[in-house]
């Protein structure tokens, strides 16, 4: 189970890569392995304002539909268009080519409460 140290996480299994006021977001290795083969990813439009803890999209495997949640409040500045034709990137490279959206953070306090790698690892152990 991969849980990179330089990322932050939510209990809903999203990861966040924070650089200045930009946040890149995807779902974790744990999440993709629980889902199985991802066949469809629904993402918000660029420019959308997102609020922490709302849903920003959906990840579908053959058997399940899973909501993905906003980890930090801000505006969508980029979405990963590769996921349209290659949704399986979420399975093969969840922290790299499987990234989903990039947010321009408008409320940096919304980043409080995100889990560090060791805390997230603990969460995953409890859910196994």
């Amino acid at each position, binding site marked *: 189970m991969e849980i990179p140290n330089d990322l932050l996480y939510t209990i809903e299994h999203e990861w966040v890569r924070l650089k200045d006021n930009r946040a890149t977001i995807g779902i974790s290795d744990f999440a993709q392995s629980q889902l199985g*083969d991802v*066949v*469809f990813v*629904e993402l918000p439009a660029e420019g959308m304002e997102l609020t922490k803890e709302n849903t920003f999209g959906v990840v*579908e495997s*053959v*058997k399940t*539909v899973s909501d993905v949640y906003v980890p930090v409040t801000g505006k969508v500045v980029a979405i990963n268009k590769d996921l349209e034709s290659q949704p399986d990137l979420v399975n093969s490279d969840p922290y790299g080519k499987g990234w989903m959206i990039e947010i321009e953070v408008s409320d940096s306090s919304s980043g409080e409460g995100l889990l560090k790698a060791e805390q997230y690892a603990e969460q995953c152990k409890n859910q196994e």
Partner: protein
Amino acid sequence: MSQDSSENLKTTPLFDIHKELGGKLVPFAGWNMPIQFAGVVAEHTCVREKVGLFDVSHMGEIEIEGKDAKRFLQYLLSNDIEKMSDGTILYSLMCYKNGGVVDDLLVHRFSEDHYFLCVNASNSDKDYEWVARHSASYDVKTKNTSADTAQLALQGPESEKVLQSLCDVSLNDLSYYNFKKGKVDDIEGIISRTGYTGEDGFELYLPPEKVADVCRSLMRQGEPFGIQPIGLGARDTLRLEMGYALYGNEIDDQPTPLEAGLGWVIKFNKGEFIGREPLLQQKEQGLRRKLVGIKLLTRGVPRSHYRMLKEGEPVGEITSGTFSPSLNTGVGLCYVSKEYSGVGTRLEVEIRNQSVPAEVVRPPFVPGHVKK
């Protein structure tokens, strides 16, 4: 077969093998079954292109024997038992008095007086109770042999090659919907050329105490052919690509089998059978709804109970839907009003408040390769 009392789920004799092979176990019809191993898409593709092995021991078996066996089954089932000879199999419905379906099943004839049924896992007990109850006025004995029968399904273009190497009876003269008694890996069993995938393949009925050994032998023999263990997830995508009905989704205790397109196994002219009157009436009045296949024209996955729309107006509901690994698109089955059932009709699937364009197609969605 044993009861796992900690979760109240039943397990098949292959439970340990499932865990060894990395199966992801989930509850299904009261059983703890593997939904996937390597992944639904990989397993699906393996069955279409090579060969896959399924544990279907959770299915039910019912044996019927006696002087009145043929007459009894002719009354109990919708298809024409008179047409059967030794070693043949028929797909049939077993109906309620109102024309709804008790179960869809396969009936196998050993001899004129001796048959067995293979029924859905989810209906096993209900079906036996139904069969036993209706047998009272016939000179037959009925037996629920589910607990004494394990079942494997070997499916895919390489399945004959894999099985023949372990089998003492010839398979190249065993045609579709026929069966033979024989030995698999030196274990006595029944080998039938049937399946739920649309590919050439076999279903093997074996003693529960020996099925794990046979499973391991088949996996070993199948290795050079790329055999994989297959879970229930791929079982569903494979049958859906063929447009095969699933009890509980396309058919249930409501009188829909004619609407589901199953008229071909309902033989009104054979004489009296349970459910004949209301179904005949329905047929004579004309059907108002039909089960059709739909294929999405853009990305998305249709799922059970999603609404079908025609220019925004509701016209039906999806009964089964999935992502088709072979077509790389969403496919499904749904009941629509007859006027929208023509092939090529443009409809929409309502997926989370969006109308996704779809088109009516006649299943199968992909060509089948069963042995003629």
